[in-house]
């Protein structure tokens, strides 16, 4: 019971932190829409082209902007010593990784999820595709959060080359993108593709606490 409470208040803390960085979330979303405008403008007001590439655009931009927020993943808490305090409060490193991953999902990916319907209107994506998009994004973005957790915990030890972490995430997310976009464009295969996506999620999700936890431990040790 007490442990459960602690988890709850871990999220209270994350909430407070993220709300104080509210403009970061807002900026992310604005960039999302700005990028969509750019696309629409550069492709021209051709309705068909737009709706063909619409889904692709949404997906790539989501991916890119979630890498945008990777820096915040562990860095701040690591540097001001809060990671340590959280650990001393009875959370193992692996468990911290899981909690943080969900927190990233909640405070970074969910706002995007909410803005997808608006994006769909702008991009002329039919409303029946919207459902597929939301489902695939739901799964895909959690996968991305896990990958982000791994790469940014790795990057705590590699303070030199921040972008390398993003590149690694992006390389790993190539299959996710291929399958997710595939889901929407090949509707007859929906179930099997969703299964594949889900399989990827499970693998990454299982690796995440182990890999991130190890990296967190090592980087705290060397701090």
């Amino acid at each position, binding site marked *: 019971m007490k442990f459960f409470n602690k988890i709850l*208040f871990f999220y209270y803390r994350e909430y407070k932190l993220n709300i104080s960085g509210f403009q970061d979330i807002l900026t992310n979303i604005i960039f999302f829409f700005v990028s969509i405008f750019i696309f629409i403008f550069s492709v021209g007001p051709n309705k068909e082209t737009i709706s063909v590439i619409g889904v692709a655009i949404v997906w790539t931009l989501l991916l890119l902007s979630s890498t945008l927020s990777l820096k915040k993943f562990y860095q701040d808490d690591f540097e001001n010593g809060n990671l340590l305090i959280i650990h*001393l409060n009875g959370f193992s490193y692996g468990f911290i990784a899981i909690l943080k991953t969900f927190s990233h999902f909640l405070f970074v990916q969910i706002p995007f999820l909410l803005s997808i319907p608006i994006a769909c209107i702008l991009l002329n994506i039919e409303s029946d595709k919207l459902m597929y998009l939301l489902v695939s994004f739901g799964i895909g973005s959690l996968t991305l959060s896990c990958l982000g957790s791994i790469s940014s915990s790795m990057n705590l030890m590699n303070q030199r080359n921040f972008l390398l972490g993003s590149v690694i995430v992006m390389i790993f997310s190539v299959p996710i993108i291929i399958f997710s976009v595939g889901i929407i464009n090949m509707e007859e295969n929906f179930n099997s593709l969703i299964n594949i996506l889900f399989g990827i999620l499970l693998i990454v999700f299982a690796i995440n606490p182990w890999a991130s936890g190890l990296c967190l431990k090592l980087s705290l040790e060397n701090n």
Partner: protein
Amino acid sequence: MIIVKDLSVDRLDKKIFEKVNLSLTSGNITILKGKNGSGKTTLLKAILNIIEPSFGSIYWKGKLLKKNLYDFYNHVTYISDKTSSLKKLTLKDNINIWKRFFCSNINNSQIETALKTLKLENYLNQKVGTLSLGETKKLEFLRLIIENKSVWILDEPLSNLDESSIELMKQTFEDHCAQEGSIIFSSHQNPGIYVTEEVNL
């Protein structure tokens, strides 16, 4: 309760310290002294099992610390030499976060008295980032009261404080010991705090 036996720590193949022995029972205060870079912070971190020692072992309540880690963590408050409050939030937010996060059973009036004795009661709505150095330090001590645990591990708690605050800390230390608590802290100065053991690194 804590026994440190022949502890040695290496870093990047450099010996930081060798064969340190130390034991802490309830009601006792241990002070760590030593030159800059002699490894006080490192020793405290090793006791907290954050740093892997290269040799030696640490016991908590008779068992190896590693086997008993989370029980140990349930009894210990660590205040590091850097501030850990969130700079972008106000004092009040910080206190609330700690209070809930540690599932503290301290009630609000106790916290208010603590704030008053620390002379922080007027800053509740100020961002922690704009507090003065000593005020940030004192805010950190609030965690001692919020967490309400028996073993305190403090890294240079007395630096940056003015005289009256140091006096206050001295009092607090003595009170804590009287309640069977135990303290281990590192410091470059010792303004008359009664310590049971002095470890020189």
